[in-house]
């Protein structure tokens, strides 16, 4: 049985992934990529759940991961639908174009 990977490593990996996703959301201007980075963030937390689950040897972590996957899917689909609508109106996918309201 391969040597058990210590939980801390797993969590650190999940943390790095999470940070990458977050930076992606902040930096990217295209809606599609923003949605992608959100996906990364969600998967990072899913990974954390799986690692935690494996530490306690319970399936709960993986069940939560499945919930997260399904939810991520719904989010992205709704997100793409909204992006489509925005593109229809503004002819651009630039997220900053959608900032008519301020102040």
């Amino acid at each position, binding site marked *: 049985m391969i040597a058990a990977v210590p939980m801390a490593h797993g969590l650190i990996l999940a943390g790095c992934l999470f940070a990458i996703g977050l930076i992606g959301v902040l930096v990217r201007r295209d809606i599609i990529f*923003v949605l992608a980075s959100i996906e990364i963030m969600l998967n990072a937390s899913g990974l954390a759940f799986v690692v935690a689950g494996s530490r306690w040897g319970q399936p709960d972590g993986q069940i939560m991961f499945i919930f997260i996957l399904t939810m991520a899917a719904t989010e992205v689909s709704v997100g793409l639908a909204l992006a489509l609508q925005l593109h229809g109106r503004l002819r651009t996918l630039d*997220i900053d174009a959608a*900032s*008519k309201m*301020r*102040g």
Partner: protein
Amino acid sequence: MLQLLWLVPALPFAGFVLLALSGRRLPDRWVPFIGVGSVGLSLLAAVLVATSFLAAPPPGYAYSQTLWTWMSVGSFTPGITLYLDALSLVMVVVVTFVGFFIHLYSAEFMAGGEGYGRFFAYMNLFVGSMLTLVLASNLLLLYLGWEGVGLCSYLLIGFWYQDSYNGYAARKAFVVTRVGDAALAIGLFLIFNSLGTLEIQDLMRRAAQQWAPGSALALSAAALLLVGALGKSAQLPLQTWLPDAMAGPTPVSALIHAATMVTAGVYLIARTNVLFALAPAVQLAVAVIGAVTLLLAGFSALTQWDIKRVLAYSTISQIGYMFLALGVGAWTAAIFHFMTHAFFKSLLFLAAGVVIMSLDEEHDMFKMGGLRRSLPLAFWTFLVGAASLSALPLVTAGGYSKESILYQAWAGQAGSPWLWAVGIAGAFLTGMYSFRMVFLTFFGEMKQQPSKKPSIDIGIPLVVLAALSIAGGYIDLPRTLGNLPILSSFLQNTLPPTVIAQPAIDTELVLGVIAGVVPLIGIYFAYLLFFQRRPAYADGPTRVARGGPLYRLWFAGWGFDWLYDRLIVRPFVWAARADKDDVIDSVYDGITRLNVVFNNLLSGTESGRVRWYAAGIALGAVVVIAIGVFA
């Protein structure tokens, strides 16, 4: 008949209420009947009460009549109670007597003018308040009368309200006297707090028991009462308002600023004599203030060109004599001088009123002259008044009263030769300025033709007062001249007798002669300066402009007005005006501006861009985690 006492102050008040309510509806013909009538009835009542008082003096030589308790709060229960004794009897009779004749005079003098009813309403209110002041048995009721007369002097000085100067003079009078009243009020608090009562007779008894002579309480109480008296009686340093008070109609000056109100301070000190006896230092201060005031006022009177301002300064000077008498413990002499002064000073004012009226409101003596043939009645009565003012010996009432003051200033136990010397110098000055006034107005060539002749209504008061200015003195003849001290012995029932240090007869004789001769010298000087060498100036103001610096200083009342204006009035007005928009308000405006700044700062964060919001959340996350984990 003593029960009628309450009628004496009530009648003038009733007159005031009637005139105030009727307002403009009452035709001018009826106004004097109410105005003069009410004071006349009050005089009648006073005389009745006086006769029954003298005939059968009530026990303890005092009669007290309580109308109702004004207020009762815990141990503080002042009542509206009238107290009649020898002192207040003299005051009541003089006030009502002089008041009645001045009302008679003003019935004709003020006729035809606008606000005739209003004038008599205020005059009646004044007489009522003065009588309340004089008859009050406790200091609170005295304070009510005290402020009442101050109010009426304000209303009457500012009677011709169209001219804003009169308004200024009236406000000045009320504010300056109000300063004195504030001190008096503090005196009242001190007395009540320490003695537990404001009833004058009780507080004097308790003060004698509890306060050691010269103790802090006695000194401060007497000092506060003195400041109150200074304010009302226009003595140093609160005398600046009286010369400006001449802006009011002449009968007002005669009644209020000569005969009655200004002597309220004298009455207060005489009434609370025990407190002053307990504080010898303050009593000495009274004498010194009196002496200094009579000198300064005398010099100032010498330089005035307005006939009424001369009389105003002369009043300040004569009251200085009364304060001198009170200071040296000559209580009865002070009251005697008050009585004679009331007669001859109101006479002078009324006669001057006739001159002013007939010369179409001309006040400048240098523009008058040679009126003795055209206004004989005014001339002769004015002459009698001036003689009595300058205390011609033997003949005039003023002579007797001033002579007794001067004698007791020298011989009195608290007196001193210095005070006497100042008194004599004052007498010299009085003789000089009073006859300067006579020569300038009535002698020399006629500059203006008098237009109106005074009628009978004005004549009677002049003649009566002239008679009293002459005969008034015989009521209290000193030892050297017939020894008939009727008034003093009568007053001794209330006021303590004066303690004479060396009662030697010859000193009294010598002093009497000196007191008689000095005014004559003064008159002679006036004759030299103002009768033989006719002054070349066309009018008063040029005379002052040409006068030397000392002359201008005296004209401006020794610069007190200038000093107070610089010291108090200007800074207060500047400070108030500078802070008009309330600096504290700007503090709150500052707070609101701070809020607006924060608002702009924060609403900057609402940039509308999603990535900015995400950054906000990320930053917030870092901060929250940092605090959550490490704090």
